[in-house]
């Protein structure tokens, strides 16, 4: 569709909304993605900020026949220094249950002899092994929180790769994964390593309990010979 002219590209606001919807509805067996931006309107609200009204059509990446409509509002606050944008949304219709797949992943992770440790997901060739697919989805869903908290009018963050993940055994019912993810910031084109701790159990939302930007340079980045 032809995008209306606005101070912030509409697609940037749509990507942010998409990430928050994915965060709130997602898990190891479900991740929603923007299929199409159906409508968009931007509004400059004096002394408040810049607001988008969006109509999104989303699909489940694991079940592309499954589409759902969504209206969302994204408000980039004036000054936008330390305040994450406000994102509200309403989903129309219901999402299919992922109980079985959630349970399978949960049981498998809980019964591992040694805590899972993995690196570079996807690998250089974009490959994710089938048993790590749910973990990749989980990281993608969870990164929506980190991205949302660190988004401004001038940034558009995406998950580029899971650099490292370590499962941490817990005595309560949660699965815990400590990730180092690489985020791609599309305006500056930088790759930013970010630590995040993710908790989840079946029937629950994905929770990011801790996240912190890493300040070391990722290997081989500018400065290293």
């Amino acid at each position, binding site marked *: *569709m*032809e*995008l209306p*002219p606005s101070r912030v*590209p509409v*697609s940037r606001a749509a*990507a942010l909304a998409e990430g928050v919807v994915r965060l709130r509805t997602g898990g190891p067996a479900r*991740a929603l*993605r*923007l*299929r*199409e931006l159906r409508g968009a309107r931007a509004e400059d609200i004096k002394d408040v900020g810049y607001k988008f009204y969006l109509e999104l059509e989303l699909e489940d*990446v694991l079940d592309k026949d499954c589409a759902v409509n969504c209206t969302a509002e994204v408000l980039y606050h004036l000054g936008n220094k330390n305040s994450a944008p406000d994102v509200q949304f309403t989903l129309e219709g219901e999402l299919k249950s992922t109980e079985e797949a959630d349970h399978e992943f949960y049981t*498998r992770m809980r*019964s591992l*002899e*040694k805590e899972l440790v993995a690196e570079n997901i*996807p*690998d*250089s*060739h*974009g*490959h*994710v*092994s*089938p*048993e790590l697919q749910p973990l990749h989805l989980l990281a*993608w869903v969870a990164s929506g929180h980190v991205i949302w908290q660190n988004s401004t009018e001038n940034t558009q963050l*995406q*998950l*580029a*790769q899971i650099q490292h993940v370590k499962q941490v055994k817990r005595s309560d019912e949660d699965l815990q994964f400590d990730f180092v993810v*690489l985020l*791609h910031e*599309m*305006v*500056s*084109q*930088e*790759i930013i390593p970010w630590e995040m701790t993710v908790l989840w159990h079946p029937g629950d939302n994905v929770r990011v309990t801790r996240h912190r930007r890493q300040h070391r340079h*990722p*290997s*081989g*980045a*500018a*400065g*290293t*010979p």
Partner: protein
Amino acid sequence: MRVPMLLAALVAVATCTETFVGQQVLRVVPTSHEELQELRELQGLEHLQLDFWLAPRGLGDPVDIRVPFPSLQPVKAHLEARGVSYSIMIEDVQALLDEEQREMLRSSRRLPLSTTTFNYEAYHTLDEIYAFMDMLVAENPTLVSKLEIGRSTENRPLYVLKFSTGGTDRPAVWIDTGIHSREWVTQASGLWFAKKIVEDHANKEGVASILDTMDIFLEIVTNPDGFAYTHSTNRLWRKTRSKHSGALCVGVDPNRNWDAGFGGPGASGNSCTETYRGPYPNSEPEVKSIVDFVKGHGNIKAFISIHSYSQLLLYPYGYTTTPVPDQQELHEVSAKAVAALSSLYGTKYKYGSIITTIYQASGGTIDWTYQQGIKYSFTFELRDTGRYGFLLPAKQIVPTAQETWLALQVIMEHARDHMD
């Protein structure tokens, strides 16, 4: 406590599994006759669906058992309860199979004998791509030639394939892929485009009619130093690998190094950033070689620079909000090209000028080529929209190349039909 678990295992095992996900191979070395007997009994429990790679024989002879996921806990509990020690020989059967399959693909890729046996559904190394080019030329010597337009900072050759059915000084189309080295689907698509051009010509269809009156130039690895670096060291490297005096860090963004709006907002003056413009325009040999080629040729009618990701078709300008004079025509061509692209797999693209669609960017390729008089200057951002980003699964290479080619054809045909 163990009994309900075994019952649960029975129920679970009743359903068939097709893959080896979650399966392990356990090894037991029986050290007593009791242990040997335990293992023989285990063999008899058919409902556990155990697969004995090494069956129980005698004392000290290892017994290897492939255990389906639902039986893992029950079997381990069973062994532990009887004091039979075991080790996990294969922690993840499926992962091993996946790795072996990848290894097979890798080894089959070491010896492509022709561009027909070449694997377009995989990502390749620089050497493999250079070998491909030579094979393509050798197989089609009248249609295809390889030009060296310069050398990179690390002295790698900068090769351009020329597709021509003859004539002199024919109007031409330029396509480049891989200017940003981490955008692997672009170089991979470039390989597919090269083969497609040759096939169309042989079958007298598609792009063959364009080749009647125009030449096509295709630079597949526009940034070979960066590309080698993505293989050897950092998969997400974007820039060139130049080190300029006074610069703290390595590399210049080759899509900010062109002489169009150079120095303005939309690029960085800090060498440690991904959008570093470089010390001056055309400081990068990868860029200068194309500038020299375009100026020397003098008759390029369409210039298309290919990137990933975001699924966008963009026209100038990036450095300024001032619309180009040909804005309306470029917008209409974009609409048509995007519709053609979508027609194949439904992949959705947005289109518009760089600055209104993504962000302000100065010193960009197609801003410069447009200002040279090449009206049909476009940039593509290929699949996807962020799920895999730069790490696009190899199985998406061919579908991406196929759909993109339809858009390229629209642009090429329009250029051919609207030459002044």
